[in-house]
Each structure stands twice: as C-alpha cells, then as structure tokens.
C-alpha cells in the first residue's frame, strides 16, 4: 500500500498528496501525521492538495479530522493548493470543509502559520508583562 510522505521543515510538517489515494491510504496518513506531530513537537501542518484531481466527501472528512487532531496536539493545519475545479465542485456539493484553513500555495500557507505564531507570541508577551493585580 502506498504511504504519503511527511516532510519536516523547521517547525512545520509538509504533506504533499501526489497520488489518487485509496481510502485506506488517507486513513494511514491521518495516523502517521498524529504520530509525527507528537514525535517532532511541530506546531504547523501544511497539506498540499494541488495534486488532487478531486476531493470527495471522504477526503474532505479526512482533512477535517486531521485538522482537529492536530489542533488537539497543539498544531495548526493549513490546506493549500486546492484546484479551481475542485473548489467549484465542493461548492456545488455543499461541502464547506469547516474548521479547515486554506491558502493558495505552500508559501502563503507558511506565511499564514507564521502570522499565527507571531500573534500567539504577542499575546503571551502581553500576558507576561501585564502588571500583576496586587502589586503596588
């Protein structure tokens, strides 16, 4: 059975789906990703679907599940490279991929993740430097 490769780039795991996946392969990817996130402690996942001809409800659900699982493991997921024909079909199908963030390509996806990290960091700094309530 084919396995979708997962690449580590800094604090991000990059998955590029180039094949027409059997359902089992998609489920295996879900498992593999969860393991890698924990093993590497990465905080970002980018799934590149520019190689996918179609996204049916199974793939859609798998992507949503991956995003949810990743979030629980403290990693944000961005799906990139959706083809126009696929987007148009999803609209017609009424599938909205809730909870999944998207970007046009890997570069924009990484920028999105970086912005999030920066915002998170800013918040942490704010909290840390806020004056304590009971200090004179």
């Amino acid at each position, binding site marked *: 059975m084919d396995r979708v490769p997962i690449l580590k780039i800094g604090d991000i795991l990059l998955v590029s789906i180039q094949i027409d996946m059997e359902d089992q392969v998609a489920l295996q990817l879900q498992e593999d990703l969860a393991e890698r996130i924990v093993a590497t402690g990465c905080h970002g996942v980018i799934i590149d679907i520019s190689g996918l001809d179609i996204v049916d409800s199974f793939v859609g659900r798998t992507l949503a599940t991956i995003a949810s699982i990743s979030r629980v493991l403290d990693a944000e997921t961005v799906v990139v490279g959706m083809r126009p024909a696929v987007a148009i079909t999803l*609209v017609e199908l009424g599938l909205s991929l809730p909870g999944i963030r998207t970007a046009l*390509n890997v570069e924009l996806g990484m920028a999105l993740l970086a912005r999030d990290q920066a915002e998170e960091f800013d918040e942490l700094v704010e909290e840390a430097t806020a004056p304590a309530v009971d200090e004179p």
Partner: protein
Amino acid sequence: MALGPEEASRFAALLEEHQEALAGAWTDRVAQGLRGRLSRAELQRQIADLRKAFSAALAGGAVDLNHEPATELRAQLSELSSGRARLGFSATETALSVFALKAAMLGVLDGNDAANLRDYVAFSGFVDEAALFTFDSYVHAREGLIADQAEQLLELSTPVVKLWEGVVAVPLVGTLDSARAQVVMERLLQTLVDTGSPYAIIDITGVPAVDTQVAQHILKTVVAARLMGADCIISGIRPQIAQTIVALGIEFGDIATKASLADALRYVLKKSGR
C-alpha cells in the same frame, strides 16, 4: 437500388484499374468548381486519398456507408469536411467534390452494357450517400468552429487584471448570463492560483442589472475562492442594484462590499497590512 457485394467489388476493381484516369477526371471537375481557391497539388492529394478510401470500402464489401468496411471512408469524408469548413468553402462545394466521382466513373465505364447501367445507378447511390454524409459532417464541423469562436470572444471580453501585489480585479461589464458567469468564475479562480493572489475584487459597476441568478453566481464564486484560500470583495454596487439586492432578499453575509474599486483596493491593502 442498393449495391450488391458483387457490384461493390467490381467498382472497387475499376477504381484501382483506372486510378489515374479516374483521379484525373475527378480532380478536373472539382478544380473547375473550386476556382483556384485550393492548390492543384493539395486537391490531387485529397482526391487520391478519397479514391483509395472508396476503393478499400468497396473492396471490403461495403454496400452502404454505415457498413463496417466503410469506416475509413467515413473518416476521410469527415476530414475533408472539417478541412473545407476551416478554409471557408461552402457545404455545397464540399459535397460537390464527392458527387464529381460519379461523372468521373461514367467516363471509364463501357456505356453500351445494359447491366452496366443498373450497376452504375447503384454505385451512384453509394456516392450520393457519401456526399450527403460530407454535407452533414461539414455542418457539424462548422458548428464546432462557431462554438470555439464564441468561447474565444467570451474570454476576450472578461479580462482579469492584476491590480497590486496579491490583488486581482475582475471588472464585469454587460449582462451576465449563466454561461458567461461560469466562464468568468473559472477564469477568476484560475488567475488566483496562477498569480498567487489572496485577494480578488469583483467590480460590478458595468453590470446593468443584478437578478437572483447573477447574485447566485457571484456568491458561488466567492465561496469557491474562500475554499481555495482567497478572499473576494465586491465593488461598484450602484444605488439601484443595492435596492434590488435588498428587495430580492439576497444575503451577502460576511462578504465585503464597497462602493468603488478604489475603496475596495484601499480596504484590501489595509487588511493585508500594507
């Protein structure tokens, strides 16, 4: 009166035996009608191919055009039609090029034989069938050409422009029917991918009226763009259109709408932190 298998092989033999005389007479007749719009060499080549195809079909036992051995002949006839359609010849001129085989064949037949006459009529019927098929193929090819041209025209009239780094704009002009809306939608989405632009401004200043269908198309485009990771802003909404939208109860939800293209651009630049 249809061709019998015996007559078919006889004519096939004639087509082979008198190749040169037939091809020559055939070419001459056709050349007359085409009045030099096709080079003699090209015409000779077309006629030679057709003669071979007729010969092969008849030798294979074809008694009518839909018969399996006539498959190659049908293919040749279709090619003749599309070629002539592209070059601007009329359907009649194209069919005449096939009809001319009959007169050419008459030239090589022994005119005194009575049996010959009956066979000739049957052969004539076969050629008629071929010529009519050519006529039909021609019409089909022409319709295809017109459809292609219509598509090209559609593409030219719906430009997608890059306004700024990461921002594209689609100025919609004129009435938006279903077909056109689809094309615009597909081109906009493709441009987003090609340019890597996370923002698109759909300007409808030039759209005279917006009905539910048009609004649906625009909405679908925006949702699709969002799925892909880009945001759309709609600009150029005139007072009348705003009233129509509200009256029709069309909900643009959280899609940003601005009065002018400039406002939309300003909004986008601010949003992307520039």
